[in-house]
Each structure stands twice: as structure tokens, then as C-alpha cells.
């Protein structure tokens, strides 16, 4: 493909107890610039799969490599990997005691050691890009859900990540605010950011994704381009799942 391989999963297993295995041998490669959408039933392990990438979840067997760095217990590796990855959570997780602007500038000030002027300028740029510049001096709980999520995206972007992870970013939003967040994510995709998104928003997958990954029972069941995936699913389980969610 000519694209750079960014993340590699090799036979990754994760279990909580010997009886309760969450990831049952996952193999996958993520490439730079791709938009990857992960769909699947709840409890399938797709969120866990996503969260192992930036070490929010540990894994017991197999190997994960991010941009050449092996993800293991070494704290240096973990920090190096986390600096390349931004994450957006279902519950936004904005810091309620800081203003919107400070939410975005916090990490650049303390980690990237930027000056206040630099950090704020970049933050305002990002907030403008996601469309919440007017709320910069308000506090998170004064914003609507959609606005908060967009701030969360800006906050992650402020660290100049190479990869952005989205864990069901619109699941906690009221319907009328879903579009504004998806629009921001689409704009990121247009600018060639590598995205890995766990979501139920199939419209987004159809329109923007390069790869659609169907995750079920702790494994990747099928993966294909959106056209192939939605029109021509090969696996029976995929077909079952699609029939359940496309026809309501």
C-alpha cells in the first residue's frame, strides 16, 4: 500500500480471570492516515481492544507495537507511546475545575513546556477549528454535551498526536448534537489524521471510513472497506449483526 504501518497487534490476549477472557487472539495492522471504524455488539471487547493501544488496559499475551515501540510494562515505552496518541472518551472527561481554555492548554504547558502565549494561541486555534471558540472562558459544566466533546477533541489535538482514538464519542450525546461531533471527526479525517473509532454511527462509517472492523466475541471477525463491508459481508455473524442494526 505504501502506507506506514503504525500499530501492530500480534495474537493479543487479555483475560481478567482464567474463565473470563476478553481479547481472544487479536491480529491487526493499523496504517498511517487510515480511518478505522470498529463496530460490534456490546460486551464484544471492542472498547477494551481500543484501550489497550494507549495502555489504559493491560494485556497478558501477545505483542502490541506502536510506531516501532513495543508496548510492555516499561514506563518509558508507555509514555513514549502515549505522547503519540490522543484519546476521546464517551464521557468526555473534561476537567470540571478548569476553564475550557485551560483544559486545552494544561498538557501543552506542563508536558510540551510551551509558554502561556504559545499554548493559548494554539488552543484558541483548535477551539476555533472545532467550533467552540466562543466558550473558551467558560467552564465545562456550562457547556452542552456536544460542545464538551468537541473541547475534548481539541484538548487531545493540542498534544499533536499522530493517532486519535475515539471510544464511542457520541454515545452519551443527545441526537441533535451527534452531527456536530461527527463533523469535527470527519474534518480530522480529511486532514489525513489516523483515526481509530469505536462507534455505533454507521453513517459515519459508510461515509468516512477506510476500514470497517467487525469485532465480536473478543476477536476481529471481519474487516473490509465500507462498500464491501456493508454491501457484501462475508461472515455469517457479520451478516446477522448488520441485519439487526440496519433494519430498525
Amino acid at each position, binding site marked *: 500500500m505504501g502506507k506506514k504501518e503504525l500499530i501492530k497487534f500480534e495474537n493479543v490476549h487479555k483475560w481478567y480471570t482464567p474463565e473470563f477472557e476478553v481479547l481472544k487472539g487479536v491480529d491487526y495492522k493499523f496504517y498511517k492516515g487510515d480511518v478505522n471504524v470498529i463496530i460490534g455488539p456490546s460486551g464484544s471487547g471492542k472498547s477494551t481492544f481500543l484501550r489497550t493501544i*494507549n495502555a*489504559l488496559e493491560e494485556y497478558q499475551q501477545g505483542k502490541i507495537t506502536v510506531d516501532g515501540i513495543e508496548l510492555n510494562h516499561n514506563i518509558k515505552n508507555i*509514555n513514549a507511546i*502515549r*505522547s503519540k*496518541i*490522543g*484519546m476521546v*472518551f464517551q*464521557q468526555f*472527561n*473534561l*476537567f*470540571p*475545575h478548569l476553564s475550557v481554555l*485551560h483544559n486545552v*492548554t*494544561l*498538557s501543552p*504547558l*506542563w*508536558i510540551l513546556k510551551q*509558554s*502561556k502565549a504559545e*499554548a*493559548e494561541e494554539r488552543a484558541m486555534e483548535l477551539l476555533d477549528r472545532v467550533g467552540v471558540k466562543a466558550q473558551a472562558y*467558560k*467552564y465545562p*459544566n*456550562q*457547556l452542552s454535551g456536544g460542545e464538551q466533546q468537541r473541547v*475534548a477533541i481539541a*484538548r*487531545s489535538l493540542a*498534544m499533536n498526536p499522530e493517532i486519535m482514538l475515539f471510544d464511542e464519542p457520541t454515545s452519551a450525546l443527545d441526537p441533535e448534537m451527534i452531527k456536530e461531533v461527527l463533523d469535527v471527526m470527519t474534518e480530522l479525517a480529511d486532514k489525513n489524521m489516523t483515526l481509530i473509532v469505536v462507534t455505533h454511527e454507521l453513517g459515519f462509517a459508510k461515509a468516512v471510513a477506510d476500514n470497517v472492523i467487525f469485532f465480536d466475541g473478543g476477536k476481529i471477525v471481519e474487516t473490509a472497506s465500507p462498500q464491501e463491508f456493508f454491501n457484501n459481508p462475508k461472515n455469517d455473524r457479520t451478516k446477522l449483526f448488520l441485519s439487526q442494526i440496519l433494519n430498525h
Partner: protein
Amino acid sequence: MKLEGKSRIGIKSIWQDTHRRMGLIQFIFFVFIIYIIAVFTTNIFNSLAKLDMTLSFRFLNNPSHINIGESLIDINNSSSFLKIIFAGFINTISITVVAIFFSTFIGVFIALCRLSSNWLIKKIAIIYIEIIRNIPLLLLLLIWYRAFFLKLPGVKNSFAMGKEVSSDGITSFGFSLSNRGLSMTFFKPTENFNPWLICMAIGLILAIVFILYLKHRQKETGKEQRSFLYPLLLFIVFAIITYFILPEKALYKDVPVLGKYNISGGLHITAEWFSLFSGLVLYTSGFIAEIFRSGIQGVSNGQIEAARALGLSHMQTVRLVVIPQAKVVIIPPLTSQFLGVAKNTSLGVAIGFPDMFAITGTIMNQTGRTLEMILLIMSIYLTLSLITSFFMNQYNKKVQLKER
């Protein structure tokens, strides 16, 4: 009840009209309360009259002829009642402040142990908390007083450290524990104390300047500065350095000396004071530990994940994300614990510590002025509560997370 014609305001229509009904209920309630108050008051005044007394606070200016045992202010046998009540008040406040300080310190320490990843430390902290929370404070006080202090040997055979007998037969101690209390070597001001006092004042000003500077720097860099800890450290270091630089020492070592019947000199803490103090500290620290623990654990996991995902280190996450949020949840119950300490000092009456309440009891015994004294002591406690609530509400408003 049947009504005749709409022009009559019968009881039924009042009952059905919600506004009028509320008015009627309030009226009935009002009459009821007034009646109760009237009956009580008349009875009280009748009882007082039988004893040939009227409600009056004038007796407070009379000499009391009471010895109260220990006091931080200068009083004697003939001080007025008002003055000894004030002495009691000072006793209460002073022991409250010191107890609050120590119990918060210990409470935070226990909370950290409780959150430790070392299983033994965690279990020890849990056991401590469970024991403290399940026995009455009064029992704790009595155990300290009767089962510990009163069992100690007398002054002549006290448990002592640093005991020296000088050439003229005078025994002195570094530290002595007896059934009267504990005495220890303490630093007291010499005649040359004032220069050092001035230096400390300068240190205070420097610290304040430092605070202002740090706040300015916070504005400039956008990064949160430790605008309390560093100035505090500065003040302490400055005070220590100036103490040693000054040519004449500002403090001298006052060593407790064994006299004929008791020990004089040094710092003397009575058994009563120490029992009340340790009981209060142990008891309150258990509750404070739980408040801190649940405040810290109450910060949602997602916050910590978001901070770590952004690349903040563990210490940075704790300082910038967890603590500010925990503060909001911790302050209100912490304040009511502090108030509780002030109210719990009243238990000093059970072990003979002359706190405000105990002195009130003594006065009531002496003069029979129960009603006046109770009104007085209640007003003092209520004022304390109100002042504390007021300040707590102010601080709370300041740290509250801003909602829409």
C-alpha cells in the same frame, strides 16, 4: 358540613381553598406554639419565684470564689463569673484549635495509608478506622484518663527521660510522665526575644510577597504554582536562619524541676488536658481519614484516565486533577467535623477538664442560676456554629464547580 348560600364563608370552603387552608393551618400552628411557649415560660418563672430568684444576668459580675484548675489567662479565686467563663472559653478554643490541627494531620496520614498499595499498611489503617468509629468518644476519654494517666506513678517516681540530679540535689527532667500530666523541656522567650519576633514579622512579609509573586507567575505562565507550600517553607526557613544568626539567643531551655510536691518549669500539660486532647485527636482522625479517603476515591476514574492519556505524570495528575476536585467534596464534611471537635470538648466535664461547659456546670451548681447559664452557653455554641457555617459557605462558593 352543609353550607347555605355562596356568600357565607363556611369551614368547608376554607378547607378547599388551598391558600386559605394554608393560612388556617399556619394560624392553628401559631396559636399552638404560642400556647406551649406561654405555658413553659410561666412554669419556669413560677419555679424560679419559688426559689426566690428572677431571671437576671447581673450575677455574672460578682466574684466567683471558684478555682477552676487550669487556665491560660490570669484568674484567681475572686475573679468574676464572667471572667472565669471567659477563661473556660479560652480553654475550649485553645484545645479545639490544637486538636483540629493534629487530628487533620493524622487523619490525612491514615487516609493515605488506607489508599496505599501495601496490604499490611492498608489493613492496619482500616482496623484503626473501624475501632475508632465504633466506640464512643466518652469511653476513649475515660480510657485515656483512668486507664492510663491515673495509673501512672506519682510525681516523685514519674516515668522520665533525661533525668539529671544536680549537685545541690535538684532533680530536673527532659521529659516526665506522671499521673498529674506530662512536663517537658520547653523553649521560652528570653529578654532578647523581640529582635527575633521582628525578624519573624519580616519573614511573614517576605512570605506574603512571595505568595503575590507566585500568583503573578501563575498568571504569566498559566501553570499552577504552589502558592501556599513554598511561602510557608520560606517563612519557616527564614525564622530558623534568623534565630541562629542573631547574636543573643531569643529562646532558652526551660527545664522542668522537681519541687517539693510537684514539678515547676518547662511546659506542663495536665492529665486532663492531655486525655481530652488525645481522645479528641484519635476520635476525630478516624472520621477525617474516611472523609479524605472517600473524597479522593470519589474523583472519577475517567478523569485520571484522561489525564494519563494526555501524558500527565502520576504526580501531575494528582496535583492538577485529583486534588482540586477532591477538595470540593471534602471541605463541607471536614468543616462539620471541626465544629464537632469544638462541641465535643464539652465532654471534658467527665474527666475534670475545665472547658467552657464544665465551668458552666460548676457555676450552675454554685449559684443555682441554671436557666441563665444554659442560655449563655447555648448562645456561645450557636454563635460558633453560625460563624463556622458562614465561613464554610463562603469557601464552598469559591471552590464549587461551576454549573450551568
